[in-house]
């Protein structure tokens, strides 16, 4: 590993501009994502948070500015990043194991090797025994676990998650949030997490980037510090947690139609 890739920033966004025709989606946006932490992009709808995530993923080009992952400029998708999609994006004609192994399949990993890796991550996300099921036989929450296992199995250092829990029910969502905290703790990866839920962002994040719209810019960066090590059961009762939720709502309320 060279000096840059061991630096404390996994992803750096420098002066990124993005327009959709006349609409300014991102204006001069700069932001750092610390290595090994989970950073949330939080903001009202239309603030360009998904646009920013897709630019970092290399799925969308920026009009100007630069995105660097481990010190290298992003020109397209790469093996250093893996994406978790809001609507899961599973192959409906493929079994769970083929879906989980699909990222590896595209990278040319042999069948037995990639299925062994996939099996490990299927077990990790709690889908043991569902390897040969098809997506339409699974609940929404289970489908997203497949999406998560697919992203984990390519072993990218950076995980990009685009509102991954917005299409699952509330209880599943809470379970996911707890699992995500464990994942951040035990996998040595950097997580970029887009959400529109204030509570969710504060609950799971080491760092919250508050985006304000028209055009999007980072209005504030918040780093919750006090409650992260107290155990997941007491977070929602912690006074710092509640204060941050209130503070963010104060900043956002004027932007909600």
């Amino acid at each position, binding site marked *: 590993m060279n000096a840059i890739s061991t630096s404390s920033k996994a992803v750096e966004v420098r002066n990124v501009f993005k327009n959709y025709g006349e609409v300014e989606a991102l204006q001069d946006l700069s932001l750092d994502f610390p290595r090994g932490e989970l950073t949330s992009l939080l903001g009202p709808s239309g603030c360009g948070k998904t646009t920013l995530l897709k630019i970092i*993923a*290399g*799925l969308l080009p920026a009009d100007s500015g630069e995105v660097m992952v481990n010190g290298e400029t992003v020109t397209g*998708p*790469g*093996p250093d*990043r*893996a*994406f978790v*999609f*809001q*609507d*899961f*994006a599973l*192959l*409906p*004609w493929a079994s769970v194991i083929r879906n989980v192994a*699909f*990222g590896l*399949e*595209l*990278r040319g990993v042999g069948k037995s090797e990639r299925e062994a890796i996939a099996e490990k991550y299927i077990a990790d996300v709690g889908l043991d025994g569902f390897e040969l099921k*098809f*997506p*339409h036989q699974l609940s929404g929450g289970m489908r997203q676990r497949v999406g998560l296992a697919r992203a984990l199995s*390519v072993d990218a250092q950076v995980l990009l998650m685009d509102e991954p829990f917005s299409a699952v029910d509330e209880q599943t969502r809470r379970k996911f949030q707890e699992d995500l905290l464990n994942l951040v703790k035990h996998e040595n990866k950097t997580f970029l997490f887009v959400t529109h839920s204030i509570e969710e962002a504060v609950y799971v994040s080491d760092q919250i980037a508050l985006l304000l719209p028209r055009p999007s810019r980072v209005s504030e960066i918040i780093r919750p510090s006090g409650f992260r090590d107290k155990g997941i059961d007491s977070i929602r009762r912690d006074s710092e947690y509640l204060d941050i939720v209130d503070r963010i709502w104060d900043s956002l309320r004027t932007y909600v139609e």
Partner: protein
Amino acid sequence: MKAFGYQLPAMSSLIIWGLLWELVGQLELTFFLPALSEIFITLSEIIGTKPFIKALTETGQAFFLGTFYAVTIGIPLGILMGKNRFIDELLLPWVNVFLSAPLTALVPVLMVLFGFGLKAIVITTSLFAIWIIILNARAGVKQINPALVEMAHSFGASPMDAFFKIYFWAALPEILSGVRIGFIRAVKGVIIGQLLISIVGFGALFELYSSQFLMSHFWAVLLVLFTLAFSISEFLAMLERKVEYYASKR
């Protein structure tokens, strides 16, 4: 099928029409319609004969070559049109023109271009089948979930990977129904080709029997043709049902 609240056995409709046909034939109302039993007797007489086997081989060969080209050209072309706006806008007007064109009227032109042999018949067959196959493959790709394409892209899929692992499978239910309709049209195409271009195969048999007013022979060959077309169509419909589980959930 149900009648008066009773569940009728499978193929009841075929049996009813078959009985009606037999009745009308026995009454000898018109020479055009001999009794069904008479047709089956004729069928059993001609089915093993050399001219019949030869006709079946000739028609089968032209049919399979024609549909082979229609499928191998039509499906990739349709997928490309669905994927690529430029290719789509370039080709779509022509596909629509030929879909509704009276292709039979073009057959003399094809004869001038490709001669009087198998080649012209195969091309006629392909032309009958290919347009609906293209349009269906295109429609299948058009309704693909863009997130799937994005997903493949984000995991580093090459254009070839995306084509064979995403587009083809996502469009498969539509592709199969296009192929099914295309094959039925190809049956028409091959017979028209064999009637107009060179009098060979089943086309020649139809020509011979109808000009000699051998109606039970004519119907016997038509029944064979119908059975073949029906079997192919049912086989493809069975494949369609196999992918049905994901057709509504892409």
